């Protein structure tokens, strides 16, 4: 069973912005999935469509097998959403916000109070339960939105940039909390533009750029790939792929090889290994790919510690 199954999702906003150009992705039940991408990539739009706040232009959405178009209420019941912007009534105190939200899911006041207490305590908000929410700090407001999203015990928790603008200590405790919730069986999807955050938390990752999913893989594989560089070598005609203990070598055609070099490995060793096998290298160039370019962009925009 897939927690999320998106098939060719498209979105054109009024005014003509094409925010999503056909996104297909699946998230397994129980997964911790990161949707990574620069600002304006289409992360919030994707999440808006899954949580039915944004009308899609085309495509199919299924959540735990329920179809968004025909089983909307069942879809909604599975999802807890923590949006990117604060969207609770700033004049209401946390306890009221949670109990009302529970009510929208059909949970009676008496039970709602019990659940609200549980989550307010877990998220360290119990002391502020009766204060107007506008008096909460930024980190507390985020946590309040997490508590609100969990109040109906959803099977899927979606968080849109949950740690933006939150200081490092609160961020770490939020990470711990999310890991715990995930370990209890809740599927989690979060968007972020910090690779580090995805790395700390997630098992799978999708990378979205300009409305297109450019990568959808496991965190491990992605990191391994980012950790290496690929070179293209023009060589004198060869028959067999040269063997190497330290490098992954792929033959493109008779006169072209591709070699993956991990950080810390020296290119000189490549030449040495090749020449012992009688392969002569004529020229070499770096293979740039979109993923790397994207990451350079992300890293330049800053990472976790420089807010």
């Amino acid at each position, binding site marked *: 069973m897939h927690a999320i199954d998106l098939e060719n999702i498209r979105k054109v*906003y*009024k005014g003509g912005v094409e925010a999503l150009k056909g996104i297909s992705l699946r998230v397994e039940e129980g997964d911790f999935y990161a949707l990574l991408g620069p600002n304006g990539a289409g992360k919030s739009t994707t999440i*808006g469509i899954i*949580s*039915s*706040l*944004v*009308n899609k232009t085309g495509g199919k959405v299924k959540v735990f097998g329920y179809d968004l178009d025909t089983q*909307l*209420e*069942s879809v*909604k*019941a599975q*999802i807890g*959403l923590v*949006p990117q*912007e604060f*969207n*609770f*009534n*700033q*004049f*209401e105190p946390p306890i*009221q*916000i949670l*109990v*009302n*939200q*529970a*009510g*929208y*899911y*059909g*949970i*009676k006041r008496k039970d709602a109070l019990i659940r609200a207490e549980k989550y307010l305590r877990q998220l360290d908000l119990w002391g502020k339960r009766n204060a107007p929410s506008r008096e909460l700090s930024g980190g507390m407001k985020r946590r309040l939105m997490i508590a*609100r999203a969990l109040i*109906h015990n959803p099977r899927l928790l979606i968080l849109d940039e949950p740690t933006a603008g939150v200081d490092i200590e609160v961020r770490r405790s939020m990470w711990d909390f999310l890991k715990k919730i995930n370990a209890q069986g809740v599927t989690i999807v979060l968007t972020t533009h910090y690779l580090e955050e995805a790395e700390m938390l997630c098992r799978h990752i999708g990378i979205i750029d300009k409305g297109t999913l450019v990568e959808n893989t496991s965190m491990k594989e992605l990191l391994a790939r980012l950790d290496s560089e690929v070179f293209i070598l023009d060589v004198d005609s060869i028959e067999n792929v040269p063997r190497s203990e330290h490098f992954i070598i792929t033959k493109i055609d008779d006169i072209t090889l591709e070699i993956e070099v991990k950080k810390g490995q020296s290119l000189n060793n490549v030449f040495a290994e090749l020449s012992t096998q009688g392969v002569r290298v004529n020229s070499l160039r770096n293979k740039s790919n979109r993923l790397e370019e994207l990451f350079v962009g992300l890293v330049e925009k800053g990472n976790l510690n420089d807010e």
Partner: protein
Amino acid sequence: MMNSSYLTALKSIWTKEVNRFLRIWVQTLIPPAITMTLYFVIFGNLIGKRIGEMSGFSYMSFIVPGIIMMAVITNSYSNVASSFFSAKFQRNVEELLVAPVPNYIIIWGYVGGGVIRGLLVGFIVTCVSLFFVELHIFNIFALLLSVLCTSILFSLAGLLNAIFARTFDDISIIPTFVLTPLTYLGGVFYSIDLLPDFWQAVSHFNPVFYMINAFRYGFLGIADVSLIWSFAMIGSFIVLLYGLITLLLKKGVGIRS
């Protein structure tokens, strides 16, 4: 039969709405009491004495139902208009939109809030009126039904206004340019007998006229048009607005991008 989850959701919206206007009671409950007291003092007491009788009652007795109705109309309307608009503006309407709550529950939730505020203010103004005039009640059933229908209709109208509104100005323009004239011309202060034929005919297109007519009948037993006809008109206006709003919410106008 309504699913019990929906009923819980409906009650939650009502609770939220009532908490909202009680939290700001100085802005929501006190001003109508003051304004309407001024109407009683100035039009009823001071000027009314010179006017003498209207339709066989003292002018004060005549305008009390109209003034109560005016309070119910403006408060039902502005409660839903400002509450739904700020829910849109602050985006906390999303709390409802992500939950498995059908649109008709959202409508009756907000309308319920407007009705409770309208009736509460109506009750306060009625109490204030007791200082000025003895209360006649001719037909309690007509009285309660008309005040209920009125607050439902104007809560719906406030919701419609909020759905289309993009700025706070948009929810003050309609009351100023539409609601207030309709109310004043609906016969709060006079019997439409006094109008020339043409303006009498025009008044028949004004929903407020039917409401005040039915409400005044409940108090005094006098009416400019028949009661059945009044309720039929009010009912049609309600169905019309309800249908329109259902359609707009379904399309996501003003709430989903």
